[in-house]
């Protein structure tokens, strides 16, 4: 991967966009990467395009007189000085790792100092004075993820711990959703542990009075648990909207203000706007964020019956875009009476679902909500002005709400899950079905246990526990063992 790409990752997926919010990725960041006050060696880490330059400005040879230039892969001993006063701060070892071979795939310099809060934070201060920005919690990891250095699961895990300690605001915002998943999984997992304990007690203590497990009961329990997991997976799919986002096609007759609306929703001029109908020929798209839901907006060519072959092609493409999208925004020019063309677009979009934007509300209205509703097939109608910015927030709220409800097919009991967690839920359910199938087909108990353990393995990928000891605890608390 080239360095330039590492710094400005291509935005192709909604979830990356979520991670990106609020962070410019091309500046140079620094932080103490050892817990403060732990003594021993402490590390100040600098990452970004200016890392080498900043480090070289602060770093002197052991006599404290000459600047030391850091070379890639070099490990050098020297003294860190205050860039303004030249005062010596601490002796340190500096190591430089050039892009793309570092953890973040950016240029990275680390000063290993003596540790302790005093010297470490003074070294950090010096680095910040030279123009680095204090890293946000988890930001090194986020950069590593964004540069493709580590995968999402790894990044999430690290970020979540770092956040849990320091970024409580964000954590609280997500606590509801996250807690929902792990609480649900933990309770299902307890049932799986109990099921396994019953098998294992019979297998490990054949001479004790623990009783033979009931094969029919085992298959029933395994199947029930599998279906609960599938239900959870469905609810989690819903939460995933927040990570993976939705695609929304903006459709309507020519000149009703689709491109203007796209620009208004994006907050910048992305598509060309003119008063000539048929301006947009090729779809224009970009990502935005509506109430935390990543939304890919697609502005399309206006829909109308036409003989112009070029325009017809554009219309055809718009239809494809609409089919691919999760939702539609049907734009209607409210300053003109409702036309057959508008009704045709509404009819076409009604299968998809979405919202109706009654645009140009800054002009005298010629269309009322009640004119639209009969043709809108339940789509909510929102009055907006793309030009004046009125009603844009309300439209965003409507789309976000629809996105969460629609993509997953449910809107109640939503839980947040990553793609990885989603997969774990589905694999756990499959393993339990496998166990039930096995027992039904006459497989011995110790083999059924393999599948049940597999289910636990996948659930543990979500809960972060390890099951082996718990199964034993369960055996000893439930069964009287001991010859």
């Amino acid at each position: 991967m080239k360095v330039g790409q590492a710094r400005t990752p291509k935005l192709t997926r909604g979830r990356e966009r979520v991670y990106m919010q609020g962070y410019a990725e091309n500046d140079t960041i620094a932080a103490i990467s050892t817990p403060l006050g732990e003594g021993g060696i402490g590390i100040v880490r600098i990452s970004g395009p200016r890392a080498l330059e900043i480090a070289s400005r602060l770093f002197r040879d052991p006599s404290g007189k000459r600047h030391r230039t850091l070379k890639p892969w070099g490990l050098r001993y020297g003294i860190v000085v205050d860039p303004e006063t030249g005062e010596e701060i601490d002796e340190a070892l500096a190591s430089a790792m050039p892009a793309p071979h570092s953890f973040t795939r950016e240029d990275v310099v680390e000063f290993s100092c003596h540790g302790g809060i005093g010297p470490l934070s003074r070294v950090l201060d010096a680095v910040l004075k030279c123009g680095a920005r204090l890293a946000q919690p988890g930001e090194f990891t986020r950069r590593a993820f964004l540069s493709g250095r580590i995968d999402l699961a790894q990044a999430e895990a690290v970020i979540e711990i770092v956040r849990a300690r320091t970024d409580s605001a964000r954590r609280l915002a997500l606590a509801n959703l996250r807690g929902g998943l792990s609480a649900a999984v933990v309770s299902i997992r307890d049932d799986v542990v109990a099921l396994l304990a019953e098998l294992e007690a019979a297998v490990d203590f054949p001479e004790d009075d623990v009783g033979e497990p009931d094969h029919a009961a085992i298959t029933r329990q395994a199947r029930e648990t599998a279906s609960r997991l599938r239900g959870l997976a469905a609810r989690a799919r819903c939460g995933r909207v927040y990570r993976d986002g939705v695609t929304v096609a903006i459709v309507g007759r020519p000149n009703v203000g689709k491109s203007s609306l796209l620009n208004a929703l994006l907050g910048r001029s992305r598509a060309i706007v003119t008063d000539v109908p048929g301006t947009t020929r090729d779809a224009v798209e970009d990502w935005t964020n509506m109430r935390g839901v990543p939304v890919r907006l697609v502005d399309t060519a206006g829909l109308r019956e036409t003989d112009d072959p070029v325009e017809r092609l554009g219309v055809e493409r718009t239809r494809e875009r609409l089919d691919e999208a999760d939702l539609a925004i049907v734009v209607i020019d409210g300053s003109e009476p409702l036309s057959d063309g508008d009704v045709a677009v509404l009819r076409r979009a009604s299968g998809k679902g979405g919202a109706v934007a009654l645009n140009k509300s800054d002009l005298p209205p010629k269309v009322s909500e009640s004119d639209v509703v009969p043709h809108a097939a339940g789509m909510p109608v929102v009055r907006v002005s793309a030009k004046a910015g009125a009603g844009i927030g309300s439209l965003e709220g409507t789309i976000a709400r629809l996105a969460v409800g629609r993509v997953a097919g449910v809107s109640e009991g939503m839980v947040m899950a990553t793609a990885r967690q989603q997969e774990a839920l589905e694999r756990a359910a499959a393993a339990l079905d496998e166990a039930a199938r096995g027992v039904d087909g006459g497989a011995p108990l110790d083999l059924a246990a393999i599948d049940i353990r597999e289910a636990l393995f996948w659930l543990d990928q979500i809960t972060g526990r390890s099951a082996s000891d718990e199964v034993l605890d369960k055996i000893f608390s439930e069964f009287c063992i001991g010859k």
Partner: protein
Amino acid sequence: MGGHDADIIVVGGGHAGCEAALACARMGASVLLLTLGWDTVAAMPCNPSIGGPGKAQLVREIDALGGEMARNIDATYLQMRLLNTGKGPAVRSLRAQADKAAYGARMREVLRRERNLAVEVAHVVGVEVGADGSARGVVTRERGPVRAAAVIIATGTYLGGTIHVGDRSWSSGPQGQPAAEELGHALAKLGLRLARFKTGTSPRVRKDSVDVSKMQEQRGEVLPFGFSFETGGTRPDQELCWLTYTTPRTHEIIRANLGRAPLYTGAITGRGPRYCPSIETKVVQFPARERHQVFLEPETRNGDVMYLGGLSTSLPADVQEEMVHSVPGLEDAEIVRPGYAIEYDCLVPTELLPSLETKKVPGLFAAGQINGTSGYEEAASQGLIAGINAVLKIRGKEPFVLERSEAYIGVLIDDLVTKGTCEPYRMMTSRAEYRLTLRQDNADLRLTEKGHGLGLVPEERYERFLARRRLVRDEIERLTGTVVPGDAETARMLAAIGTAPLQAETSLGDLLARPEVTYEKLAAIDPGRPVLPQDVVQVVEIELKYAGYIRKQRGQIERARRLESRLLPLHVDYWSIAGLSREAREKLSDIRPRSIGQAARISGVSPADIMALLAYVESGRHRGEDSELGV
């Protein structure tokens, strides 16, 4: 021997000490085995039984690696049974009642005959440590310092042993010999942490005083194999065991006397095993149960004494008397020796490396109950491994470590050194996540090659092993390669053995995978099959019948191996790695896992911590390579 009295000193002559000393000697090292008494070598102070789920597999593995326990029990059993036959291929387990007198006597004979091995009765009071901090020998009360290049401590429950019977308690080892007080202090002084555990035994009664007509008979079985791959089947003339039950009256007596039970008065502080609770614990914890099993097990052939399995207790002797008499068939039983609880010190097993060498004192190894385990089989397994590694150590070779996916022995030692244990550790099949591949029938296929490589398996035995392995492989190949047609003729034969007709031609191997088909039944449509020994048929049948599950398990092993192969440097400063929880930092600093896989098994280390470690290992790779100063 360069000023050494022996290459290796083994302290303790229990099951761990015996295997350790034999392994060292068989690998060609000179060994001095120090024991408190000659008669108590290879003794069985608790249940006179060997094997059972998880434990049988250990014994088979010891045998496959060239150890002695399996052959010793095969020569001295009173009764042998195969447990769990209906519960699946992974958990079928042999269990034997031992003639404890004959067992010890035979083992002593084996020790006596071993060249390179000397046994000496001595009381070890300390460990000699050289200027470099590594073990150089021991100090005995009888003759002062005794020198060796490595020392294996296998002192069982003798360290700081205290016996409790009711309100009486005294310092003692399990066999009436004095407890080893000084040695415990000496180990503590070396910086090794100790924990206090407790275990119990049941009363023994005179056989003549028991009325077995009120009990259920438990017979042994005539089986085509024993514990060792080298011995044949079991004999028909086996001793009987008997099963009876406690009564509500028994429970009343126990409840009325809890005030005199050291477990409940606070006199015993050590942690006891949950899988082997005393009868008083069972009565208190499961008040709803109306009866508990009591097994009468003979201790010797034609002997006078029976062990009351299930009645482990440390109640006062007079209460034990009353309690025993309340059990049907034991109304007039004469107690020869009351049950007792023994508290003892053991090493915190996380002090050990996977080689069973202590982390703090190079050259000092520990094996057996002193490492916090219980059970003869667990002890013997560790003895074997400690013996092997002591020899490898003095020869400057890499340690011998079995993976969890290779052997129950690997599971046992990995659990101990990675997780530690908060109660005496006993092996169970559920501790082995890959138990379908760790069966008793394939222990030699898994390990005998390694045992031979170590010099523990003699050539003629190795030849027999190779022959057996060839038979197994050839037969599997033959069955998977032999195709039967899907014609009417075949359908008729299949119907005769109770299975559905074929849609298309199918291999015999695939037919065997059908639940209702067995190797034996398949004979009808497999006229050309060779005549094979039972033990070969058994492996072949399991491997083919459960091929799908075995494949699944292999996948799981592969998945785990990816983490096992990510090695962690020995001297990581876990406090400097970003993203680890405090608990993970503490545990990782203490245990110093070899790999990310091992780190993941430490309790208190979460997947999130593992991700942080992975990130560290990834980024550290570059730093490590280029660090001229070793930072």
